[in-house]
């Protein structure tokens, strides 16, 4: 579903390598966790995968479509939930959702059904007539989740999706992530909450200093160290990387 090959992205004229030759393959029907310390390159990688940033080199393929040569088709298969939502504050929730629906070409009935389901699920139906600037962080997050799911994307990408969500909504989101995968789709998300990654993910990748330091299922990553938690693994791997 998602294939990343030799991906490189630098800032400050090449002085800072935010993403340093990443290779990754996310299969159809899996929940893939992308974890790493602050500033490791998670958000930059996600921005590259969603077409917000242009890579210096390397390629990204979404459902068979190359992000560089076929960006519209590739982006059309992604539902993206960014980490910050301070955008287009003057639109109401309803206007924002319909704008996204129009861009993705979601038909009226499909749109109606999706909104009915997700607005109720995330408990933001009451606020949908208000401007986004009046929303709390959690409410904006829920609106972004609804917008990202409206067109039933084969690849759902979420950047720190649980930040700011109340426990009930966080639970509903985790359930929906699993349900989305069970429907034959794929979920790729970054998180700091290692317990969530441990419980939810089929596979994880750990990124540090722009490089993937480990990738695989938890059992594969533990590599025989029975009982080691993801936290211990994370600290061990990122600590090793820092020492290097």
């Amino acid at each position, binding site marked *: 579903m998602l294939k990343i090959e030799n991906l490189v992205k630098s*800032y*400050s*004229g090449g*002085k*800072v390598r935010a993403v340093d030759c990443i290779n990754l393959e996310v299969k159809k029907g899996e929940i893939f966790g992308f974890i790493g310390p602050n500033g490791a390159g998670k958000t930059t990688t996600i*921005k590259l995968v*969603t*077409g*917000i*940033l*242009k890579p210096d080199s390397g390629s990204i393929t979404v459902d068979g479509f190359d992000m560089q040569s076929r*960006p*519209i*088709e*590739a*982006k*059309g298969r*992604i539902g*993206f939930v*960014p980490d*910050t939502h*301070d*955008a*287009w504050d*003057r*639109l*109401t*929730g*309803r*206007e924002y*959702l*319909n*704008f*996204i*629906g*129009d*861009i*993705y*070409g*979601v*038909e*009226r009935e499909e*749109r*109606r059904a999706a*909104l*009915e389901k997700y*607005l*109720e699920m995330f408990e933001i*139906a*009451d*606020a*949908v*007539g*208000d*401007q986004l600037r*009046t*929303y709390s962080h959690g409410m904006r997050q829920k609106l972004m989740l609804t917008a990202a799911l409206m067109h039933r994307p084969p690849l759902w990408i979420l950047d720190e999706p649980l930040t700011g969500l109340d426990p009930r909504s966080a639970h509903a989101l985790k359930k929906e992530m699993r349900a989305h995968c069970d429907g034959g789709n794929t979920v790729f998300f970054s998180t700091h909450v290692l317990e969530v990654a441990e419980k939810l993910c089929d596979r994880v990748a750990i990124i540090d200093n722009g490089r993937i330091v480990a990738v695989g299922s938890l059992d594969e990553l533990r590599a025989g160290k029975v009982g080691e938690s993801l936290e211990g693994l994370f600290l061990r791997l990122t600590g090793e990387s820092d020492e290097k």
Partner: protein
Amino acid sequence: MKNKTFVLFKAQLTARFALGGRDGKRAKPIVTAVAVVAIAALAAVYVGLYCLAVDALTRAAVAMEYPDIAYDLVIAAVMAICFLFGIPVVLSNLFLVRDGELLSSLPVTPGQIFSSKFLLVYLGELVLTAIFVLPATVIYAVRVPEVASLWFFLRALYVTLLLPAIPLLGAAIVVIPVMLIASKVRRRELFITVGSLLLVGAMFILQLRLQSMLDASVENADLFGNLLKNNFSRLSAIAIPPMSWASNGVYGGGLTSVMSLACFTLAVIVCFFAARGIMSLIYRNSLRSLLENRRAARRIPSAQAAAEPTSPLSAIIRREWQTLLRSPSWVLNGLTGGLIALLFMILPLFENETRLAFVSLVSALDPSLLAVVLAGAIGLLSCVNAAASSVVSRQGAGFRILKSLPISYEKICLGYLIFGSEVCLTWAIPLLVGSVAVLGLPILPALGGTVLGLVVSTGMTAAMSIVDMLRPKLDWTNEAEPIKQNIGGLAGMILSIALLAVIGLAVYFVMAHTTLPLFAGYAVGMVLGLASIGILWPLTIKKAAKRLESIDC
């Protein structure tokens, strides 16, 4: 311990102009150099034209043995501009800010917040003031050589530095009632927008009404002469003393000059502390009321939240209108042309004699000439189409979301250009209706002029938007910044003025210097307008799409 006002001011200045260092995204030096040279050259042309006008005015005043009045007029015009345009600037920078929440939480007084924000606004207006006053000072010194001395220039510099203070403080005080009422009403942003528009309109009409009353009392038909000889200085001295103190402080002799400067300085200090005192009482509450989250009265059932689908291009255009019309800052700055058009069409209703003179002039002119004049008026207002000149910058952080969506950059740019052209309708329609209903323009030339004006404006929209599309200012803390502190937007406006000038000169040449019928001038304008669309739109879309794709955000 550091002065908190200064600390706040420094932090805001650093944040606004990224003085703490850029984010590593630097343009190629050659591109920057070319842009700087182009902007400087165009700016020099317009400053040159302004200087020519001021010089002509000063020479006329010298010939009438009232040389000081030309300088008085410049000072009065600058203060009036600072005041009228200061109202939206003060609103945007003092109240409709994104850092209000942060500043409200800090252990600083409302007076300190006000002072720091006011200083920031003041700096911006100071540049505008200097552009108008300093050339006029030099021209005055050349035409009236007996006053030219180091002391004269030092006084002029001092007055220039203080000149924006009183009109800006006046604007701040005028805005206070709007903010006080706004904090009590439900749809406060709509109220602020409409209230501010009405306020600016009322000030404008009041000023012209006063002027028309003044004219009526003069028996002599020589309006300009009478204004210069009898009324202007007297009126300004009585009605707006700081205005005469400022100009007397520069060109007055000996004790008059010193006294005037002292009075002017005292007036600035008094106004500042009066505004600061009032703001200390109301500022925090006004800011808080704007930060409060008001909920919509009506709950929309989830199923009804889905609207009728539309094309991605229409969605882009519709979203631009939705965001523009909801922001008081963007309405006040972006739709200025519409307000000016409306005022100019309402104005003759207050002055029957002027209106009748216009009607008789209109009836004597060729229809093609009338159409071209109306098109020119529409084109002139399109030169201040800030909604188009800041179309990408206004996206701010939202541009990142747009980049993740499955829509081509070409289509986004096309949507922006269509939106920018649609904005021109907000002044084209009032001018069309007003020219027919108020000035008695026949329907056919009025429609022809409107069509020509819109065609030219559509071409100008590309010239207006291209710089912002290539170099948008996406990081900002208040909604006025992407419009008011956007060099790209200013450069776009200059480019569009240049395009209008080229088309205007070609039309003028055909109408005035050839034996062709006057309609040929109209036809030339139309052909050039269509050609500008045919050339500039594809070029802008191609260049901008490529650039927008490569922007890191």
